[in-house]
Structure formats: C-alpha cells, structure tokens
C-alpha cells in the first residue's frame, strides 16, 4: 500500500468512527439480546459459573469493556449473577463499558473490509468506495452498537478472509496455515455459525492442489490449521471454566456432580478437569438449542424470519422504541436498501458468471478475480444451505456473514466487468461508481433515524417503508 492508500484508509476510519462508534452508549437502555449477554458478561466479572448457548469469547470481551471503563462502579449489579435474562437494569446504569468492544470491533472492521478489497483488487480507490457497503449499512451499524456478538464475530471472520485472500496465490508456510487457524478459532469461539470460515482452508487446499498438486505439505498445513483453531477455541473455553469459580443461588445449569465438586474444590483452573467441564458445557449448549422455539410465521409479533427472505431484508426487527407525543424513537434492525440490493445483485451476477464459465464455457477474463468470485459464491451458497437446515427460529442478523460476503462479491463483479476502465481511470465508469457511492451514503442518512434512535412521526416512518415485505411497523 502506498501513501494514498493509507490516507484513504485513514479517511474510512474517520467516517467509521462517526457511523459505528460515536455515541455508541446511547440509548442508555437495553435492547434485543443485551439482557442475556450483559448477564453473562457480568458473571465473568464476578467469577460466577454459568453455561450459555454461545461460545464464550464474545461475552468475555463484553465483560472486558466493562472492566476497562468501569462506568458502573457505584452501581450494584449483583442481581445480574442470579439470572440469565436481566428484566430490570439498575437506574442510571451506563452501557458504555459493555458495548465498548462490539462497537470498537465494528469500527475496526471498516479497516479490515478495506484491506480485504485491496488484496482482492489492488485498487485503493475501488476498495475505498467498496468499503462504503460495510461503512454505511444501517443494519450492521445498529446491531453493532450494542452489547451483542455479531460485530466481534465479523471482526475475526474478516481477519480470516483477509489472510485467506492475502496468501491465496502465494506459497504458504505452516505459519500461514496457523494464522488462518487462529483467526478461524477466534471467530468460532464467538459464535458457532462462524464455522463457515472452515471453508477457507478447503479453498486454500483446492488452490494449492491445482497449482502444485497433492503434496504432504498441504496435509501438514491442514493439520496445523486445525491445531491453531482448536487451541484457540479450547483455550477460550479453558478461560471460561477458570473464571467460573462459584455457583450462585444453586444455579448449577447442567453441571454434573463432578463439575460441581470441582468448583467447590476451587479446581476450575486445573487443566486435569478440563474435559469434564467441556463435556457438561457442550451438553448444555446442545440441549439449549433443542429448546429454542421453531419459526412460527402465524404468531403475532414473530420477529424470526426464513433464510430465503434475508437477501431481500425480510424481516426488519423493532429492537426498541420510545414514544414522546406523536414522535417515536426507534432502534430498528433495518438494512440500507441500496447496499443490500447491490449485495444481492453481486450474488446473482456471480452465480451467472460462474455458471456461464462452467456450463457454457465463457472465456475467463481475469483468472485470479474469477477464482475469488467462484470461491466467495461457494461460501455464500454453503452458508445459506447450512443455515436452511437449522430448525430453530433464526433472525435477520444471522444473514450478516453472507451479507458481507455479498458485498465482497459486488465489488469483485464490478472489478471483473470493468477492470480495464477502472485501472485506466475511465471517467464514465468512475463517475458511475461515485454516483453509486453517493446513493449509499444518502440512503444511509435517510434510514439513520432507525439506526441512531432519532424521533420520527408516523408519516416520516411510512416514507421509509419502501417494501411491505420488510414488515416495518410504525408505533402510533
């Protein structure tokens, strides 16, 4: 990267500060899953044993933010240790600590997203404008400015993708495999659906087999990758066990008598007990997932949605609202329609291109770009197929991983189609890109009341209901 690239990156980070990070502690009221995640995070702070459906890393970082900033040091939060769902938050409680790392990672994701695009296209201006897709997506922003897991998860996924792209067509050392394994392990240690990053290893191996044939080094590399991912994943769980040093109010979850005895003996940090605690935690996670209700579209107020509707933004979720006379403030999970549409177009055109090449023998213009398009299309489709098999209720934010992949695809397809003109600085092409980028920013601003808790009356709200299937509903 040259000086200009760094300047563009700096400018993106500056904008990202305002879209993702600035004022992230507002509203100072909980919404969506914060009731769960803050309860879990506080237990780490107070060394209380608990079990949870998600792996521990995200909540550990949420707790770390509270420890670092400790804005609630004079507030009694001990009740958080006796519940998994906080019904009433203490008056005057600040969310600045708990939300610090989700907002911070979301902000840093801007840089990682730029680096991914830069590695893919080697064009800093295109990467700059392409980053607008992440930078100005209202759904990603609103969800990331809360004590929730997805922005942290995306940070590690972006890290894995960046490393995957960076080393894709160069000879890989075992250290490279290890680094990809570490990124993957960190992502999976936040949320299990990050396991989609395992496909990156598969794609690396496929590329190497194509280039140098089947070699022992590839098998060793895969082993090192698995080792790195497993070490991180299990290491995080070790930390989770070590921090759970006491049982609060007989809340043992599904801890076996042996596990309970380990806690009584203050032996949770003893590696010899690791397997017992891991087994009990994994069993709890499995049972918890079985207990989550299924999607019921006939249920009034159902927030869940079918995965096939996600690319169209189905369905928006009203996380929080507050009415003041005729004005209502909202925290609404609603995407930027322009970025979501560009992402969908990116996916559709990628599928068309891949099929045209593989079925109809269309000549490939740029082999490297085509391989990335095919790879990310494969990851996108794999995620959607996998998530379609999950019987429990799922929500629009479960689309965030493929959504960001679709953004990458949109930029790649544009680059594939107009590489020559982009490189030469063709005025018509760059004018068009600027117009598209301006549209992204304008629509982000237009939908920003949903993102930043700004008041709207019913008419102003309705102005934003461009499609009924989003199921945006004004509070009157």
């Amino acid at each position, binding site marked *: 990267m040259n000086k200009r690239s760094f300047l563009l990156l700096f400018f993106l980070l500056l904008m990202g500060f305002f879209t993702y990070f600035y004022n992230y502690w507002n509203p100072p009221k909980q919404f969506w899953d914060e009731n769960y995640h803050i309860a879990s995070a506080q237990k780490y702070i107070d060394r209380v044993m608990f079990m949870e459906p998600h792996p521990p890393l995200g909540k550990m970082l949420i707790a770390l933010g509270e420890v670092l900033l400790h804005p609630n040091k004079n507030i009694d939060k001990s009740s958080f240790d006796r519940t998994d769902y906080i019904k009433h938050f203490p008056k005057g409680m600040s969310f600045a600590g708990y939300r610090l790392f989700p907002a911070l990672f979301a902000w840093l994701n801007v840089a990682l997203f730029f680096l991914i695009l830069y590695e893919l296209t080697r064009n800093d201006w295109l990467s700059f404008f392409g980053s607008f897709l992440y930078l100005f997506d209202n759904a990603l922003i609103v969800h990331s400015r809360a004590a929730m897991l997805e922005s942290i998860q995306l940070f590690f996924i972006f890290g894995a993708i960046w490393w995957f792209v960076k080393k894709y067509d160069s000879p890989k050392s075992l250290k490279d495999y290890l680094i990809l394994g570490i990124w993957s392990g960190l992502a999976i240690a936040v949320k299990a659906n990050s396991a989609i990053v395992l496909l990156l290893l598969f794609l690396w191996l496929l590329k190497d087999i194509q280039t140098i044939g089947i070699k022992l080094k590839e098998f060793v590399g895969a082993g090192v990758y698995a080792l790195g991912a497993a070490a991180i994943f299990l290491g995080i769980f070790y930390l989770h066990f070590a921090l759970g040093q006491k049982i609060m109010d007989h809340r043992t979850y599904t801890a076996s008598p042996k596990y309970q005895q380990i806690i009584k003996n203050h032996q949770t940090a003893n590696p010899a007990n690791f397997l017992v605690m891991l087994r009990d935690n994994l069993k709890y996670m499995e049972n918890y997932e079985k207990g989550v209700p299924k999607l019921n579209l006939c249920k009034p107020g159902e927030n869940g949605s079918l995965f096939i509707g996600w690319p169209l933004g189905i369905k928006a979720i009203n996380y929080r609202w507050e009415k003041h006379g005729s004005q209502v403030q909202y925290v609404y999970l609603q995407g930027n*329609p*322009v970025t979501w549409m560009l992402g969908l177009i990116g996916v559709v055109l990628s599928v068309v291109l891949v099929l045209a090449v593989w079925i109809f023998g269309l000549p490939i213009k740029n082999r490297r770009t085509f391989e990335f398009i095919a790879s990310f299309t494969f990851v996108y489709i794999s995620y959607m197929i996998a998530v379609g098999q999950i019987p429990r209720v799922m929500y629009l934010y479960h689309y965030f991983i493929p959504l960001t992949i679709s953004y990458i695809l949109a930029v790649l397809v544009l680059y594939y*189609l*107009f590489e020559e*003109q982009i490189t030469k600085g*063709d005025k*018509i*092409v760059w*004018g*068009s*890109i600027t*117009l*598209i980028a301006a*549209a992204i920013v*304008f*629509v982000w601003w*237009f939908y920003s009341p949903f993102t930043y808790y700004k008041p709207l009356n*019913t*008419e102003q709200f*309705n*102005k*934003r*209901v*461009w499609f*009924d299937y989003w199921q945006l*509903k*004004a509070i*009157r």
Partner: protein
Amino acid sequence: MTTGNSKLFDKRYGLLLFAIALWVWIGYSIASHTTRHIIKATIIQSSKPIRSIDDPLVPIKKEVLWIDKLYFPKGNELRHPLYGYLGYRHDFVIHFDAKFSLAKKGPVRFIIYSDDGFRLKIDGKEVMEYPKDRPFSKSEKEVVLSKGEHTLHIKYFQGFGQLGIVGYYQEGSKRHLIGQDGEALRFEEQ
C-alpha cells in the same frame, strides 16, 4: 468498449445507466411513500359501545392521520394502504375532511361502501347518510355542484364485527376514489 461481439453497446454506459436508475429508484421510493395531505382523518376510539352515527362517545384515544384516498377495505381491523393495520377494531368514529375544486358546474355522484354507517356532507350540507350498523354495503347519491371550491366531510362509525369504508365519486362515466383527482374535480393539498 463493447459487450461480447455485438459491438452495439458500450457497457460503460450500462453502468452509468444503472447508477442513474438507482437514484431514480430512491427518488421514486421516497416520493411514492410520502403522504400527501389530502384527507384529514380524525379517529376517535370510544370506551362506550357505538351502535349508530349519533351515539354519544366516551373518547379514550384520538389520532389524526393524513391520507391520500378514502380506502379502508373490508376486514376485521382498520387498514389503509399507507399505514397498514391501524389497530382499531370496534367502537370508533372517523371524521374525514377534505377540500376540492370543480373546474365547471355539473353533477357529481358520490358512492360510499361502508360497514357500519356514515354521513356525508358537502359544504356543510348533508348529502346522504346511513346512520345505523350494516354489513359492507353501498350507498350513492348524485349532487349538482357549482364551479369552484368545496368542502367534504364524512363521519363514519364502526360498532362491532367487520368494518371498512371506501369512497368514490363519479364525474361522467369515470369513477375515482375520493382523494384522487378526476378531470374536472381536483382535491387540494392541505
């Protein structure tokens, strides 16, 4: 620059066209979802049952909405295309107020489908009414109106069960929803 072998189309202009179309779509989406202040609908929810148009109300909620056409289709809950389901099901009254102008003197036929009753006034004078409850049914009346500005007021009530009100006017052979402009009759933005 060409696409494929056709040599007919410069794909750079395709991208430019897409970028322009994107802005047109944004503009259209905003404009088409912007409520025009044509008809003022004042909804009053009563805690006391209402069984006819002049029954006294005990108001527990009052809400003012602006709508572009008198179209609340038959159903179990009050619904308008601009607002979706509005949450009103029983024992409420709506006052609709609008202004329109006629380019020339002539007969105008008003057609109201309602469940339950309604009363229509033009320039403060009663034109027609159905004061009691009924299933979704039609009432119509023709009036001769002078050239110039006029006011329209409709009071509608819903008691229990199904509901709905849809209003049309007819000038010549063409029928339009109340709120939408015809050839000689034009509604005024308020």
